[in-house]
């Protein structure tokens, strides 16, 4: 064995020793190269790409021992006084959202050789992005080297509606240490959890002696070490609607991967070895992984008396949703055609590239600090306070830059045990999920079986709709009922119909829990409903577009189904225009017969959807905006930029109102000790609710500034004007800096803090059309092109909105064509890695045309509505409809993998 390794990183010599099992990734991160990101650790995603002697490699599967005498280049080494051309191109074309894939993407792209865009996409197959849908990345690479001088947008031009660059861009393209795991206090301990090998078992005895005796182990915790207190991992405002059925550590395990015990040690490796030394005597219980079996109640998953808010624990029913309108019997009696189908939706995973990671420690004054990758810092603070009996003011939760979340970080999954360990040891503790844990021990989208029975008149009017969803919530009920509510509420609500009923049954099984995931149940329901409509259109021989137009709600309609407390409303409506744009973009001609060329068949398909902007009356956002002594502004908000760019959009809103530019507004976000409360970033709420809070606060501050200036310079407020630098009247001017200092002298605060909830959650609408090609010999579906129009109200930042649309669409593409968690009969997930659970790569993605339809909404800031989730809903049903048009085969199960398509075609023949 060589005594030590001599190698260079970014032309700097290193001489180090390491264990033969160390990866180059770990070695580089330990040397401080934090731009090398840890994601899959299996050579599948490219986030850790570095150059070895100028060739891109995955550093996660390169043994550090082999690096001796080699030259390594990391993202940190690309800058040479200025950004490299590829970094500059990514910055100019904004080829990133959360930024977690960005350093690897840039390292790979810098060395690519290609002759066409198709070749470029194929060559990029070793790098995955979950946020952008690759469009902005491909644009960046194609533009590299071209001189695209981006002109700053001035205050005069206004800030809202402009493509202001995402303000975190420079940090992201240079790989700065901005994410949770990139910094930690000294003396950090690492936590690992022993996970259950059984789907359902009671822990009879648990012996931690051997684990505790291992050198480097600080402490081991089991259910005996914690107060038994039921809670939900869901990040919801109190009172939480979810079943309280989860425990810090429990004497029972309910799925393969459930927590058994926690070890805290000097290194992750020691903690992992110690986990293996824990001896557990399990009483293995019968299990149920299928909801229909589970509902029989032969196996009771939550039999503990401490759990509450469970609908029917004896039958494993976590929750039940019933929505009714009119009378079904009357409706079906009127119908000329009654069609009934069942649609099957799989469990899929979020695959945010940054895993769940939390670090906790005690500050000098005894404050418990939690640095975490979370979408809901305030809910997290509240839950920790309840779990550990610590007053909220003694707990500070904050988040650094987030590497994606998609709903999976609207769960409190990693903070709780970290805090337990810090409180028990008094030391800083980090818990970082492995990729396998992300796949097997976090949350999935709810797998569902949805039955719809529809009654229609021969001319296409829907007269009755009955929908039933059986929703598999896994071992815990977090988000179960609320997700399942939206499965019925949005898809049914989208179509006018006097007689409707929906029943959603949320069922516990011994599988990994399901939770919040972009689209939040509407995605599943939309697949069922939009497939069903095309089936009806085909049976009645009506153009599916016409059928939709005939039945879609319009501004004249009230939403027929839903719960009063959710207060969804049509604030603005441009779905008709969306349909027009999309059908035009695809040159849709209902008379045109689908094309067939040898074994290739082509078809087009469409789908419509709606999704609310936040939760009316529930989603609370407070913001604070101030003029600082330096004449610039500071915006404080508790909201979380999950990677979308909301920190930039929020500043645009403030800047527009204050007549300035985003550069003049510092933003401080999502820190329970330093920002006012915000419910967090989920439910497409940030632009609509926090954005409106910012808008209102900025308006108030503006008046306040003018009034204060009027007093100081002794003129009427009415004659004053605010611009970037000053407030001026016809005669006099006061610079903002002067104003701030003058106010300070007078003891006046130039600061506005404001709380906002929306009485109404405006509905965003979207319409998608796709053209597909089906290879009838292999069953392979290829999406040739697609066009989506989103009725967004107002695009605060069109480029950011565009990114939400393309990213959502491609996430939907994975759901449609490839992604599925595969369970064995024990409920064990068989594809817990990015090689076997594959998300779309650049070459899987078709050209996308996105239309942002702007028709101002009366309730959102500058007319804006939410856009975070809606893009995901339409892809799968539009593709299924296109396949049906092309081949006559109706696919009722996702994902539409080639063998399913092919077998369905065989059956038809």
């Amino acid at each position, binding site marked *: 064995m060589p005594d030590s390794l001599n190698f260079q990183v970014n032309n700097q010599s290193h001489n180090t020793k390491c264990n033969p099992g160390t990866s180059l990734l770990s070695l580089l991160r330990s040397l401080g190269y934090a731009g090398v990101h840890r994601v899959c650790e299996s*050579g599948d995603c490219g986030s850790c790409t570095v150059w070895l002697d100028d060739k891109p490699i995955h550093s996660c599967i390169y043994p550090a021992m082999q690096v001796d005498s080699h030259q390594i280049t990391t993202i940190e080494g690309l800058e040479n006084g200025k950004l490299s051309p590829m970094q500059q191109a990514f910055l100019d074309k904004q080829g990133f959202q959360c930024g977690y894939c960005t350093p690897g993407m840039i390292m790979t792209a810098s060395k690519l050789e290609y002759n066409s865009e198709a070749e470029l996409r*194929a060559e990029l*197959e*070793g790098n995955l992005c979950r946020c952008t849908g690759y469009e902005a990345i491909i644009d960046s690479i194609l533009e590299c080297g071209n001189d695209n001088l981006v002109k700053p947008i001035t205050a005069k031009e206004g800030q809202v509606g402009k493509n202001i660059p995402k303000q975190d861009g420079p940090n992201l393209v240079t790989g700065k240490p901005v994410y949770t795991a990139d910094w930690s206090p000294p003396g950090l301990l690492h936590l690992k959890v022993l996970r259950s090998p059984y789907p359902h078992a009671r822990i009879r005895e648990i012996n931690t002696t051997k684990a505790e005796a291992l050198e480097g182990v600080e402490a081991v915790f089991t259910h005996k070490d914690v107060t038994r207190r039921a809670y939900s991992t869901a990040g919801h405002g109190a009172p939480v609607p979810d079943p309280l059925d989860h425990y810090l550590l429990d004497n029972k395990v309910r799925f393969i991967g459930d927590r058994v015990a926690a070890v805290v040690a000097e290194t992750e490796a020691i903690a992992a070895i110690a986990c293996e030394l824990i001896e557990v005597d399990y009483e293995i219980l019968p299990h149920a992984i299928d909801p229909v079996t589970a509902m029989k109640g032969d196996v009771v998953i939550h039999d503990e008396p401490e759990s509450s808010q469970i609908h029917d624990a004896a039958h494993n029913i976590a929750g039940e949703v019933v929505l009714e309108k009119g009378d079904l019997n009357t409706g079906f009696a009127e119908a000329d055609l009654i069609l009934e189908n069942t649609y099957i939706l799989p469990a899929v995973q979020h695959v945010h590239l940054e895993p769940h990671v939390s670090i906790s420690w005690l500050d000098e004054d005894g404050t418990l600090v939690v640095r975490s990758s979370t979408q809901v810092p305030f809910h997290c603070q509240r839950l920790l306070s309840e779990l550990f009996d610590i007053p909220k003011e003694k707990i500070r939760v904050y988040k650094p830059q987030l590497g994606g979340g998609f709903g999976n970080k609207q769960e409190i999954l990693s903070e709780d045990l970290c805090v337990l360990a810090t409180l028990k040891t008094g030391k800083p503790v980090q818990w970082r999920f492995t990729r396998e844990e992300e796949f097997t021990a976090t949350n999935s989208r709810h797998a569902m079986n949805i039955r719809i029975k529809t009654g229609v008149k021969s001319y296409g009017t829907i007269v009755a709709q009955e929908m039933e969803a059986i929703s598999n919530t896994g071992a815990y009920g977090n988000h179960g009922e609320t997700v399942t509510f939206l499965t019925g509420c949005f898809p049914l609500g989208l179509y006018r119909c006097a007689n409707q009923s929906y029943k959603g049954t949320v069922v516990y099984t011994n599988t990994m829990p399901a939770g919040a995931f972009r689209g939040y149940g509407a995605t599943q329901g939309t697949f069922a409903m939009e497939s069903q409509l095309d089936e009806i259109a085909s049976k009645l021989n009506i153009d599916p577009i016409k059928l939709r137009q005939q039945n879609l709600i319009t501004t004249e309609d009230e939403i027929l189904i839903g719960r009063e407390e959710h207060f969804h409303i049509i604030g603005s409506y441009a779905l008709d225009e969306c349909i027009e744009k999309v059908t035009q973009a695809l040159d849709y001609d209902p008379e045109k017969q689908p094309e067939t060329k040898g074994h290739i068949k082509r078809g087009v398909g469409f789908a419509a959807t709606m999704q609310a902007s936040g939760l009316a009356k529930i989603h609370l956002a407070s913001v604070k905006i101030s003029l600082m002594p330096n004449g610039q502004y500071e915006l404080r908000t508790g909201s979380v930029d999950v990677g979308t760019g909301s920190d930039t959009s929020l500043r645009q809103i403030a800047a527009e109102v204050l007549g300035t530019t985003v550069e003049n507004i510092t933003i401080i976000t999502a820190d329970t000790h330093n920002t006012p409360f915000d419910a967090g970033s989920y439910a497409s709420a940030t632009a609509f609710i926090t954005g409106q809070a910012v808008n209102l606060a900025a308006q108030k501050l503006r008046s306040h500034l003018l009034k204060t200036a009027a007093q100081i310079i002794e003129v009427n407020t009415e004659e004053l004007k605010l611009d970037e630098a000053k407030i001026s009247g016809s005669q006099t001017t006061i610079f903002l800096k002067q104003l701030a200092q003058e106010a300070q002298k007078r003891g006046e605060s130039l600061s506005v803090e404001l709380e906002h909830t929306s009485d109404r959650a405006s509905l965003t609408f979207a319409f998608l059309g796709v053209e597909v090609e089906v290879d009838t010999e292999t069953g392979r579906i290829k999406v040739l092109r697609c066009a989506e129009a989103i009725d967004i109200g107002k695009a605060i930042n069109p480029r950011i909105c565009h990114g939400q649309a393309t990213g959502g669409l491609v996430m939907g593409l994975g759901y449609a064509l490839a992604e599925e968690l595969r369970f064995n009969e024990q409920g064990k997930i068989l594809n817990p890695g990015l090689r076997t659970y594959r998300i779309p790569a650049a070459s*899987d993605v078709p050209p996308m045309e996105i239309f942002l339809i702007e028709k101002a909404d009366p309730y959102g800031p500058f007319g804006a509505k939410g856009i975070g989730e809606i893009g995901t809903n339409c892809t799968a049903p539009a593709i299924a409809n296109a396949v049906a048009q092309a081949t006559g085969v109706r696919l009722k199960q996702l994902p539409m993998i080639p063998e399913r398509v092919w077998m369905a075609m065989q059956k038809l023949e």
Partner: protein
Amino acid sequence: MKNFAYVRPNSVEDAVSRATSDRDALFIAGGTNLVDRLKVFLDEPSQLLDVSRLAMKQIATTNEGGLKIGALVTNTALANNIDVRNNYPLLSRAILAGASQQIRNMATVGGNLMQRTRCPYYYDTAFPCNKRQPDTGCPAATGINRIHAILGSSDRCVAVNPSDMSVAMVALDATLEVQGVEGKREIPFVDFHRLPGNTPERDTNLEPGELITAVILPPVSFAQSGVYLKLRDRASYAFALVSVATALEVSGEQIKNARIALGGVAHKPWRATEAEEFLIGKAANKSNFEQAAEIALKDAQALAHNGFKIELSKRAIRRALAVSAQGGGEA
């Protein structure tokens, strides 16, 4: 979990001698598959013998007009080699159909041929597996087995070999040069990988301690007609559900020579010799291709979830042969 040592042998002989005296030692070159396995403790070696710096990185023309490819040539270098692209386009395409740029930059020819199955049950130590631990059972045989073997499997193992490169190599009649303590020997590629039989723990016919040093490709006059058709769940970076390598020598209407090899269907890259023999002397037409495909798959047996692969393989063979008959290219 146990610690292992890292050693850098200074010659092929040194490497082979160390590996022969320590049966728990493993060679490492690019490490792209081995590191994966080490991470989940599928392999727990006593030492890693790093052969990556040894001098086996040349691609040279042989006296016969073929190529001798050093075992440490990277996938990238091999796929882009001008002689390979011109004379064995099928090999170049097969390599580029696998993995990613970053992996191809690290992966070596020798390592590629040694990569082990991606059967999820083999990969997950929570399951029993005859390949991992003889005589413990094969959960894949009765579990989720859509990616598993339809040809040549045994009741002990239904895993498939994942290598794209190997499918091309077997179609091109390659020979392996290996070195053991006794010296060098050659193994015809078609005999290199094994069927599982009663010893699924053995993937190849390498003897303990032996190291692959080179692959020799004979000249193949009709290799221009080569086709590599890979069918998988998505456009990029996936192991083949089924892959087919074909090449045809057609003179006038008549087939003079045929090569058909299949990947993703068996424990080894599968050469469809009988189907090839059937085609010789026949006309290059659809009906003969159909019959050849039937012959190639006549012994195929479906498990619970992989029945579709039989028909898919037949269709893939037909399509690939049709393209080969037209002179080759993308299928």
